[in-house]
């Protein structure tokens, strides 16, 4: 009996040692992971990751070149709005939030760019990204806050209320602003996380209007 227990004990020690070694190896691998991401010439560097601490993302634009996921959301007037309603137009899906400072910097630019390119078949859909799917009691106050913020920012394009139904197919939307430029065929031509300068935004709009030609 004693021998059996001793053998079991030794086996356990060995198992524990192996597990600890494996853990240390994993930690060492993480610490020695590549700190530099090589980006092909002419391509934008990857956007900051959700944790903001420099972890590399495999693909900063996973939806680029793919059909924009279909959705139907409610606007601030309670009307249903679908992406399909804008078939044949170039659309900027701009995910934002009332608490997002960088979003509030670019929104006035989007208002002006929308006016500038509207005649060429361009539209902006502002999608407020807070999720009140599980909090119907808080929805009225949330909606009032969005209306106030949208009015204050001078938004002249449709503002839709987001939630899980759209955030999941669009990749989680962890960082805001998060913009998807969609061409007339419904294909995503650019996917940008974070604030970029006005010229870059305008260039992406032109690319979407042109039909996404590279």
């Amino acid at each position, binding site marked *: 009996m004693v021998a059996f227990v001793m053998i079991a004990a030794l086996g356990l020690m060995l198992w524990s040692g192996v597990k600890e070694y494996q853990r240390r190896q994993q930690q060492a691998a993480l610490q020695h992971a590549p700190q530099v991401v090589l980006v092909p010439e002419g391509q934008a560097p990857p956007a900051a990751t959700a944790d*903001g601490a420099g972890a590399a993302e495999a693909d900063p634009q996973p939806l680029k070149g793919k059909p924009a996921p279909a959705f139907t959301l409610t606007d601030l007037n309670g009307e249903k709005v679908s992406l399909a309603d804008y078939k044949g137009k170039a659309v900027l899906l701009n995910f934002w939030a009332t608490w997002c*400072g960088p979003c509030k910097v670019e929104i006035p630019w989007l208002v002006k760019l929308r006016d500038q390119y509207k005649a060429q078949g361009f539209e902006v859909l502002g999608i407020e990204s807070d999720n009140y799917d599980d909090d119907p009691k808080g929805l009225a106050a949330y909606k009032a806050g969005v209306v106030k913020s949208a009015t204050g920012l001078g938004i002249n394009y449709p503002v839709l209320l987001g939630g899980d139904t759209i955030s999941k197919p669009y990749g989680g939307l962890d960082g805001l602003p998060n913009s998807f430029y969609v061409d007339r065929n419904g294909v995503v031509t650019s996917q940008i996380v974070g604030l970029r300068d006005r010229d870059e935004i305008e260039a992406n709009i032109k690319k979407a209007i042109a039909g996404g030609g590279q």
Partner: protein
Amino acid sequence: MQASLVIRRRFNRCVILSDAPQARSRRTSRVTGLDPRRSGFKLPAVAAALVLLLATAASAQDFSGADSTQSSTGAKSMVTFLFPEQVTIPAGKLAAVDLHFRVADGLHINSHTPREKSLIPTNLAVVEQDGFKVSAVDFPPGADYSFAFDPTQKLSVYTGDFVLRAHLTAPSGEHLLQGVLRYQACNSNSCFPPKTIPVAVDVIGK
């Protein structure tokens, strides 16, 4: 500045926050603290060795999680609760306990008193318990911060390490301070949805 607490619901003392590394550490240390002489085994020496080995193996596994600030997906936490894990205070007397947190490099979070109403403040919610009372929490003033793209707007934020001071009263014995820190973080060009992290401290009233 002092802020009233958000008291959410009553918790039974024996509930352990499974997501809190600190809670896991403590649970492990209780296991390692078993007295083999009271374990009831007939082969005391060998059995005690086995119990200790089991505990050591479990300890190695649990502490590997406690050491890390990374989630299961590999993403680092934006804000981490650093310490203390355990404090001793005079039983029945009001005492101040400093809770230390760290904001990850490159990020900032709104202070408890952001300058714009639409911004989400940092808050601490503490679980209410019988006989063990957290009467208030002091939040530090925020530091000025401006985004490079809008230098005229001054935000009130926390970056790096920051400390909240909890004022609490505990009767004699061991208690678990359980709370949740809610924050909303941004980096230099993006903002992230509000998140929470668990806060757990063993409080011993003596």
